[in-house]
């Protein structure tokens, strides 16, 4: 007995897709449903089972072309999800960190070693990066919804991925800058409080996680032809 053409088609399609597992599963379930419905319709018109399945697959479209269209949607969905994470997590993470710092360490000015003015500029800039990155992600989400039908899905997916990469990059840069500046001014400040060191570690874990999400976003968007 030969391989089922519907199974082969769905497997081939699935092997070409990259994105959220749930989204891929939903699309493939819907594809299989559609192919089975079409098969039933063709059986009703008098075709044999094999002919009906073959016709259903042919009507569905060339797997490469369909995979490309599916992938564009998966990429834009992944991009949207990443931007939602960025818009919510970045300001929350920053607020939690700042609140913890004020409680456990206090204002930078009250520390034992003098804090140069340039350091405060870097600290201020770092404070702003999370808010700015979150704001950009939020604007991108709103624009993405408004422009969903006006612009090509592949372009929107690439834009969402680029914005996500840029947003995480800016936050990463801000955090690296403040750590380097702190080490330059007084390295002991970096290990001054164990809870703050743990908070910093959590912050970095979140940033790295967001970075990985953004990278996958780009990967999903760039495999679209």
């Amino acid at each position: 007995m030969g391989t089922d053409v519907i199974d082969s088609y769905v497997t081939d399609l699935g092997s070409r897709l990259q994105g959220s597992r749930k989204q891929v599963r939903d699309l493939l379930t819907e594809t299989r449903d559609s192919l089975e419905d079409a098969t039933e319709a063709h059986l009703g018109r008098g075709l044999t089972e094999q002919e009906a399945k073959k016709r259903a697959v042919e009507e569905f479209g060339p797997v490469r072309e369909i995979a490309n269209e599916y992938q564009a949607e998966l990429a834009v969905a992944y991009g949207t999800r990443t931007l939602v994470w960025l818009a919510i997590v970045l300001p929350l993470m920053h607020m939690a960190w700042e609140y913890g710092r004020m409680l456990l360490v206090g204002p930078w000015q009250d520390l034992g070693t003098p804090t140069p003015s340039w350091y405060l500029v870097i600290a201020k800039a770092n404070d702003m990066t999370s808010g700015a990155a979150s704001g950009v992600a939020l604007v991108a989400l709103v624009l993405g919804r408004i422009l969903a039908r006006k612009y090509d899905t592949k372009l929107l997916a690439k834009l969402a991925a680029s914005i996500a990469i840029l947003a995480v990059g800016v936050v990463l840069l801000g955090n690296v800058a403040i750590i380097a500046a702190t080490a330059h001014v007084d390295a002991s400040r970096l290990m001054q409080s164990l809870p703050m060191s743990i908070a910093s570690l959590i912050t970095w874990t979140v940033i790295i996680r967001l970075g990985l999400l953004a990278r996958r976003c780009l990967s999903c968007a760039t495999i679209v032809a």
Partner: protein
Amino acid sequence: MKPDALRGHLDALLLATLDGRQLHGYAIIEALQQGSGGALDLPTGTVYPALRRLERAGHVTSDWSTVGGRKRRTYRLTQAGQRALQAERSAWREFTTVIDGVLGGGGKWAQT
């Protein structure tokens, strides 16, 4: 009708197909084919990404439900989708009126 000619109108056709009812993917495809008397010849697989696009735009919403003993994703128009459909219909009427005024003239300029 060729797929390329249809592609630009697929969103509007899908909105019109879902007007006042809730359908699953293949039922939408069947309704499109029946509505066109079988003239719409689009790879059926292109309908699903288009439905996702409409959902992303907030014009369509979907739910998984059991239809005929099978779990299926069904789609329906949102209020924004209803408004988008009205806009599409007006734009289409305007477009056909203008084009018909020129193309449907029966060569009246040649007769003058």
